[in-house]
């Protein structure tokens, strides 16, 4: 600063300009000194704290921005993680639903198979019962027919057999019984 001031002063002396414009160098120097003092005071108590405050604020802003970025990154990571979790949960849920469907289908198939088996068994038993009833009926009819035939034969024999026939049959029976 001082070299500049001396240079100006020196230049003024050389050119004689200052005298032309009515400048007095001692006032100029005093004003420069007072300006420097004022500048120093302003710098110390005004500019420097302001710059410090601004720097601090800049640091805070940078820190906040940094925190915001980190938060954003964390948020993105959390979102990604939650998406992964949701996807996994959906897969698990789908798996459970598939399993439930499979189990339900197996149960339904088993029920159907059992019902079919029961129906077949019932049908077979009914057929057996019908067959047994049919056989029983046939046997009863056969027995009844035989009884009627025997009874009719007995009635016919009682009327038609003569003593001669009986005697002949008795002789044959005698031969049969005596050869036992």
């Amino acid at each position: 600063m001082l070299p500049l001031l001396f240079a100006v002063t020196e230049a003024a002396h050389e050119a004689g300009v200052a005298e032309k414009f009515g400048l007095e160098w001692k006032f100029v120097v005093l004003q420069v000194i007072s300006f420097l003092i004022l500048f120093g005071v302003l710098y110390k108590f005004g500019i420097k704290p302001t710059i410090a405050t601004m720097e601090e604020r800049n640091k805070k802003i940078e820190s906040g921005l940094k925190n915001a970025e980190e938060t954003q990154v964390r948020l993105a990571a959390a979102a990604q993680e939650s998406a992964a979790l949701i996807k996994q949960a959906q897969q698990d849920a789908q798996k459970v639903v598939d399993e439930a469907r499979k189990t339900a289908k197996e149960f339904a198939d088993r029920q159907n198979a059992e019902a079919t088996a029961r129906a077949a068994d019932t049908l077979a038993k009914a057929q057996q019962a019908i067959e047994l009833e049919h056989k029983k009926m046939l046997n009863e009819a056969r027995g009844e027919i035989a009884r009627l035939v025997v009874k009719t034969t007995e009635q016919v024999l009682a009327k038609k057999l003569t003593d001669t026939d009986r005697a002949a049959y008795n002789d044959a029976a005698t031969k049969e019984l005596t050869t036992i």
Partner: protein
Amino acid sequence: MAGDKKTKQLAKQLFKLSLVNGQVSAEQVAGVLGYIEKSAPRHPLALLKLYHRAIATEFAKSRAIVEHAGPISDSTLKLIEGAMTKKYARPVTASAQPNPKLFAGLRVRVGSDLYESTVSGQLANLSNAV
């Protein structure tokens, strides 16, 4: 029941005493009855029933009851007597007993054995077979 067992054994012994040459002897039976009367064994009524049953069974073994429908000749009875005597190796006497339900043929009963050749028997067999 022990008394019943002893009574059965006694009845069996008395029955054996009543036989002479495998045949029931009237004299022996009279002797046995006299013994029972005198000795008055335990359960006399049961003893007499068992003894009577044994004698009746023995008599039945010696009798052939010939049931018949229609006429039957003495020669037929003789033939049956001979056959049964030979079969049972003891004297068997035949007696006729008419039974019209047989229609025709003979049914011979010796003791608990039965021999049959009758029309009613054949009809019954036919009915059972059907």
